[in-house]
């Protein structure tokens, strides 16, 4: 069994209204030291597989087909054997 963490962020240049809005709210709360907020989503998966390579390949497919939209997202996959 493998524990997989997929970290999904926005590509460079894509606006992040959620991040901007959070930054504004943090400033209003007095956290003036915050200079940038980026929203990133992490999806945890538990996956059966013969080896790390096979799991990597299959998660790449999942990212292409559902978990991300390649037009705006980039992703990072971290795999740990359990």
């Amino acid at each position, binding site marked *: 069994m493998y524990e997989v963490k997929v970290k999904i962020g926005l590509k460079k240049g894509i606006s992040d*209204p959620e991040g901007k809005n959070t930054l504004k709210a943090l400033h209003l709360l007095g956290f003036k030291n915050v200079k940038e907020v980026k929203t990133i989503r992490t999806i945890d998966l538990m996956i059966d597989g013969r080896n790390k390579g096979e799991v990597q390949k299959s998660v790449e497919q999942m990212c292409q087909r559902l978990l991300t939209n390649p037009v705006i997202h980039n992703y990072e996959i971290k795999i740990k054997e359990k």
Partner: protein
Amino acid sequence: MKLEDVKVAVLRIEGTNCEQESYDAFKRLGAYPEFVHLKQLLGIDCNKDEKRDVFGFQCLMIPGGFSAGDYIRGGAIFAARIKSKLQKSLESFVKQEYPILGVCNGFQVLIELGLLPGIDTVMSDVPQACLNINDSDRFECRPTLLKHENNGKCIFTSKIPNGDVRLIPSAHAEGKLLFPLERQEKILDELEKNDQVVFRYVDPDGNYAGYPWNPNGSPGNIAGICNDLGNVFGLMPHPERTFYRHQHPDWTQSGLDDNVGDGREVFESVLDYICKRF
């Protein structure tokens, strides 16, 4: 074919919520719409007599709503479920020039399915565009003004004169149409050259005016596009919500016939196309 024989599938899964108005729009014009749960097309978890074939219909409509809770991204899960079994059928449906309409969440589904923008291909394996979070980071819900800019390719707007402005309400949080950033300008040019831009947001004087007239920040103020064949059409605003004049905010002052809501011609156009073409 005769209007009363035109069968329209109004697709739904959990979370779609504009199917009734969409169904009514087709029904009131004399066609034969049917609510079809996606399971009925996939042939799972339903009785034999409930199963349906895509080719039993002349038109598919994916209505607005929050399908599957908008998890992952708006329309992504609906699209993934459709793709799981119907990718080839849908591709062939479009190639045979049957029309597909996607409104709001339905537009997001068409983008995620790869049926739009459909510039070089009928259906791409991975999405070629994205309907991203509105620039305002808010759910924008109000009447919006759309200028019709199509020169005849889109079969859903053939009855609307080019340059006319229609009031069609918007209600969405993810409606900013984006293409891969490094090619965005080129793709926008190509869409225009191919006559695939259908509606743009304008102000009451008919000018491109940005926010708040453009509720989401879409580049080029684009509200709706069609594919290269002109038979797949997606737009964020809801034409089914101004089917009648009394659904317009100014209907008592306008003095216009109640039967001429601004969204009505979208449905009239596609039914007219089907009756003539098949």
